[in-house]
């Protein structure tokens, strides 16, 4: 008899990209930025929960971030996730992908009996896409990135995934345990159940694990554990634009546009 699946879904809480700007002194201004669940991670949650519904088992969400992200974790639970863990420690701050993947892998390892880790393809703020394979390497597990469909072959105890590659798609079969990432937009993430959210707000306490709980040397995580450094920031506005509004009836606008188009072909 196969045991039921234990699926971990990795999520990141990110500022809305359009809300983050550069100040005069080229430091980040994220004071007015709304925090949201990284969009592809919602597709990851949907994938995890629907796998649970089909094959049985449970889903645990893991995120690295400050303790006040617990509210987002309960929101994710209201999408059908069973447990939520925040990896939270001041020492984790300023991490590049190397210590980030180390920390997430340590959390997954501590859970112990995980069959599948599902991540979103990339985060909308950092956008490296390197976290899923990094986690897999720390764990010594197999990986499949940019997946569209994930199925569980109960007889073989393997996952069958369709992933997108430069030449199209490939369907591959990978053993358990595995780390996969799913592409943004591969499914329609369900809405959180707000009654459930309210219930969790009152009765569920998100588990918090710090560096000590994860048995991680503070020298190896966060900024200190990073190989890369951000030298500076600069804005990427592209060209200066004229921002000239063309007005009139559709016919008049069309005539003006036709002239502009033919002059700029």
């Amino acid at each position, binding site marked *: 008899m196969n045991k039921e699946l234990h699926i971990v879904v990795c999520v990141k809480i990110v500022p809305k990209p359009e809300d983050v700007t550069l100040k005069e002194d080229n430091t980040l201004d994220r004071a007015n930025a709304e925090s949201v669940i990284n969009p592809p991670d919602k597709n990851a949650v949907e994938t995890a929960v629907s796998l649970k519904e089909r094959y049985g088992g449970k889903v645990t969400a893991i995120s690295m971030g400050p303790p006040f992200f617990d509210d987002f974790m309960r929101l994710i639970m209201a999408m059908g996730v069973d447990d939520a863990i925040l990896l939270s420690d001041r020492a984790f701050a300023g991490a590049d992908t190397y210590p980030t993947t180390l920390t997430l892998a340590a959390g997954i390892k501590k859970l112990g009996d995980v069959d599948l880790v599902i991540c979103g393809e990339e985060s909308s703020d950092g956008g490296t896409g390197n976290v899923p394979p990094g986690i897999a390497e720390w764990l010594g597990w197999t990986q499949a990135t940019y997946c569209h469909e994930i199925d569980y072959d109960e007889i073989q105890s393997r996952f069958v995934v369709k992933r997108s590659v430069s030449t199209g*798609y490939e369907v591959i079969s990978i053993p358990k345990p595995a780390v996969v990432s799913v592409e943004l937009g591969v499914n329609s993430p369900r809405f959180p159940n707000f009654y459930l959210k309210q219930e969790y707000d009152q009765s569920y306490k998100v588990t918090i694990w710090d560096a000590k709980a994860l048995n991680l040397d503070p020298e190896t995580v966060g900024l200190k554990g990073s190989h*890369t450094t951000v*030298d500076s920031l600069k804005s990427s506005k592209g060209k200066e634009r004229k921002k000239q509004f063309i007005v009139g009836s559709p016919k008049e606008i069309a005539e003006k546009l036709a002239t502009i188009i033919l002059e700029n072909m």
Partner: protein
Amino acid sequence: MSKTKKPTNTTDWKGIWVILEHAKGKVSGVSWEILGKARELGDRYGIRVSAVLLGTNLDEVAKEAIYRGADEVYVAEHEALMHYSWEAHTKVVTDLVEKYRPNILLLAATHNGRDLAGRLAVRLNTGLTADVVELDIEPEGELLVGSVPGFGGSILAVIKCEHSRPQMATIRPGVLIAQELDTSRTGEIHKIASDIPPNLITTQVLQEIPVESVDISKAKRIVAAGRGVGTNLELVEELAELLDAAIGVTRPLADIGLKSRDHQIGSTGVTVRPKLAIIVGVSGAAHFVSGIQDAETIISINIDEEALIFDHSDYCVVADLNDVLPELIEALKARLYSTAK
């Protein structure tokens, strides 16, 4: 499980390596672009440029790599490398890196390039600058400086990896320029024996589903459509045909399959630099804008006067695209046909 950070003696590590991505011997454009930039940097600082090829039957491709700028090519030919797998590719590249110690290791920021790079960086215990759009080396000729887009592309972070080697980076397609084929160039081709244990690869390839691909990254004119068109591209197609323009779409339209992923513009799609872009029904999210902001002239049509896309446009039209596009098509037809006579 933590590895202690090795204090790397960085002076032992030399040269620029480019891992060429290919499908059955057809090298992807982005790999030639990276090699072209490596050549330029190599010439500027007197650094040796090496290409790395993994697969089978690579003699012709290896020669082409020399013609396109490599001083030497490492060729690892093995049955197990015919199809990309993280297991075999990570193993072979790791073995090569440990043996020859390149200072800089560049890969394409494609799906498989990122799949491999993310894994390699942890195995090699080094830094990885991901999705680079501007690449340079500091004047001393040692340190790689890569600019990467953050927050959808509106902000660039300049990243360095000072103490670990090799300095790894993945490069976004369409941001660098390939060298012209120069068949008079010469270089060395090293055939490498790879050690791939038979049970190393646990991934089984069940099916390959090729999708016809187009390259809109070099198009002179582009008509780009967003969700404002609904699910109907007829007007956009007619306008594009009239102007001999390529069609681009935002990510949601590619997600629902209205156009294939190669038509998607943006940070997870292609970067385009047309002379003229006509953008209709697109809100102007940072992830989209970063792929088209280098267009020479941008015209946008959006029903919402507050749409962010107007901040990135030269000519802005606040209107329903279904009202303006038919009139525009008529106006253009009248002018194009009258000048043709």
